[in-house]
């Protein structure tokens, strides 16, 4: 601490008290910040949607709602896709829409069964483009082992949509004994990412062609359901080396019912930083990330350096953050690395007890800083 900093120790407490107060929605209109996945989105969801629709299944605000139906345990999720441009290296809005919903089911521990798809088309859209998009949806569905079994199509006037918007809804089956959730992280747990981060976000940003930048990058969009199934089979079920769901290994410090995998989240909008903040808050724990251990492709890092962005906040569409109990880490890493989509899985940090609700970064430069939720979209800096 610098000399001038002494005597300021009450600051954090004062600030944390202010942060704990439920955020108040002060805005009178929707701004782009409400769609960016950061604090503004969270406030909007809390004040408008949760306030009016509150129920126990919605309340945890997980990627998917998990509930019993007869003897089965189901996961249900939905997601809208509004990407610009519609086509980008490595994919298009079609496979993105299928993979996104498949992944929301997969990280809830579900085996995806069926998808529904609603499409909003802008008058004037090229039908050849639409065919390409739908063909990609079909391919992605086949790859993920799901079918798109129902759907809806609407057309709006020219100028009222950006070519094509797609909403996909998915239902999946969950092992009734499985418990996963952002609130189950415990001190000592380990934070794993399943590969280099930020590929999708930077690819799409460059594909817009507004920056006169180019890089040999592809979106990482991919279905993660096979990867999560392999991971859970190795770590969270009988016969796996990890802790058995239902009790938690003695001495693991685990939550009641916590398995070797505590939580999985796909690091989409808001990136890895946003996921880790959600985990920190939901579990009342701290997260410490080692910057040097975070895998980022040179091209992504370079683009982020030029544009003043932080890769930790850049979206991925085929990467997960997995919180794993310490005794299950080796098994989990082996299972993840056995799948091509998880071949570069690596430990980037760990869960600690203090400071609760906060994500810290040990920088490669040898310092420590906070990694907070963003308010809205990361804004490029002037100079």
């Amino acid at each position, binding site marked *: 601490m610098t000399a001038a900093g002494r005597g300021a120790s009450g*600051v954090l407490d004062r600030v944390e008290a202010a942060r704990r107060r439920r955020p108040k929605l002060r805005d009178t209109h929707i701004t782009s910040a409400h769609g960016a996945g950061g604090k503004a989105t969270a406030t909007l969801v809390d004040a408008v949607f949760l306030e009016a629709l509150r129920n126990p299944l919605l309340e945890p605000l997980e990627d998917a709602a998990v509930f019993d139906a007869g003897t089965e345990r189901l996961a249900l999720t939905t997601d809208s896709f509004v990407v610009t441009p519609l086509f980008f290296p490595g994919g298009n809005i079609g496979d993105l829409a299928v993979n996104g919903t498949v992944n929301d089911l997969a990280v809830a521990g579900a085996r995806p069964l069926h998808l529904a798809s609603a499409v909003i088309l802008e008058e004037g859209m090229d039908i050849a483009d639409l065919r390409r998009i739908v063909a990609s949806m079909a391919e992605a569905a086949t790859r993920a082992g799901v079918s798109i079994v129902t759907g809806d199509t609407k057309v709006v006037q020219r100028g009222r949509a950006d070519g094509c918007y797609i909403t996909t809804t998915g239902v999946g089956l969950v092992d009734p004994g499985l418990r996963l959730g952002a609130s189950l992280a415990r001190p000592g747990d380990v934070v794993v990412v399943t590969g280099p981060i930020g590929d999708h976000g930077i690819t799409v940003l460059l594909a817009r062609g507004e920056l006169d930048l180019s890089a040999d990058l592809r979106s990482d969009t991919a279905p993660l359901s096979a990867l999560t199934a392999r991971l859970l089979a190795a770590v969270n079920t009988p016969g796996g080396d990890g802790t058995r769901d239902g009790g938690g290994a003695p001495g693991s410090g685990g939550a009641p019912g916590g398995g070797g995998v505590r939580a999985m989240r796909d690091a989409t909008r808001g990136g890895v930083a946003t996921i880790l903040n959600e985990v920190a808050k939901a579990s009342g724990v701290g997260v410490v990330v080692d910057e040097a251990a975070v895998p980022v492709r040179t091209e992504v890092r370079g683009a982020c350096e030029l544009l003043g962005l932080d890769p930790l906040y850049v979206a991925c569409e085929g990467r997960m953050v997995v919180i794993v109990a310490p005794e299950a880490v080796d098994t989990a890493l082996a299972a993840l690395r056995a799948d091509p989509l998880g071949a570069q899985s690596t430990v980037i940090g760990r869960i600690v007890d203090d400071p609760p609700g906060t994500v810290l970064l040990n920088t490669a430069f040898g310092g420590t800083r906070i990694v907070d939720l963003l308010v809205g979209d990361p804004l490029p800096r*002037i100079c």
Partner: protein
Amino acid sequence: MRFVDEYRDADTARALSARMADLCEPGRAYAFMEVCGGHTHTIYKHGLEDHLPPEVSLVHGPGCPVCVIPMGRVDDAMHIARQDGVIMTSFGDMMRVPGSHGSFFDANAEGTDIRMVYSPLDSLKIARANPDRRVVFMAIGFETTTPSTALTVLRAAAEGLENFSIFCNHITIVPALRAILDSPDVRLDGFVGPGHVSTVIGCRPYEFIPRDYGKPLVVSGFEPLDILQSIYQLLRQLRDGRCEVENQYTRVVAAEGNPVALAAIDEVLEPRPDFEWRGLGRIPWSAMQVRERFAAFDAERIFAPPGARVADPKACQCGEVLTGVIKPWECRVFGTGCTPETPIGACMVSPEGACAAYYNFGRLRHRGSTSTQRGDDVGSVDPRKADPRKADTRQADPRKAVIRA
């Protein structure tokens, strides 16, 4: 990654840290102002203060261009943006700066068309693509960004583009530094000088600081090791009893600056007799305006905005933060009334703003007994870094430091 990692090497930083500690006079406190918002951002983003000897503290200066734009100019910009057929273009971090009725984002939600651009030249693309609209570039920044605005106007003039203009808010660093040095509350031992500004204006404009005010200044680059080395050079000057302008950023900054850029600025813009700075008040000859010859590209002449003068919110202490009189967390609304979600002052808006940088990255340094210096139990993940306590790093081999004078 080349040209990045070598400027962020933790071992070099630790070695430099040890050498800085040797330069400090026991019992003396040193306060250095880093002038640029870019420096402030680097300092917090990389946790640079963890490498400073306890005797050294950093004071965050006025060099964040969006932080010093007064509310009245934001209101004027919105007035222009609301005129028929106007598309306004703006750098990204200007978008959230509050005027007296919200930010550009809020204005867009109510119907204006204010678009983010990375370069002023992008505004020309938009102007060419929308011949029936009037495109106005919200030009802000110090001498770093002024040349690109000037070149954009020159290009628009050469092309004969008739639907493009700039709302000029460009400011100059030297009058601001002089205002800070003249402020009775300021106690500084030296300056980490602007890097990017100096690529344009060179090092000579700062010579009055050692000469008239007796403070050393080291022009610094923006990588963390650049800043550490600059602080090292300041400490070395103080120990040697020297007081001069030094250039740490020699790989980019020439002593005479960039004559081509200066000529472009001079062709299009001229000093403005008077300009209001948020927190610093009105400073004569501290900003630029469009020359008569380019009146057709001057949004102030075309749209005649009201020239709103809006007092900063009463609770806001941005002025004292910007002059280094108080630290961000000493502001009475820091982190409670004023947060990045609901900024009262602009210092909380830009990632270069001292308050936002401190709130987002640095809050944890003031947890008193549960300090999170590296090596404490919140600890590092990598076992190789298990015990790099400051006391130990002082003993690192100083020969490992690569000092590029």
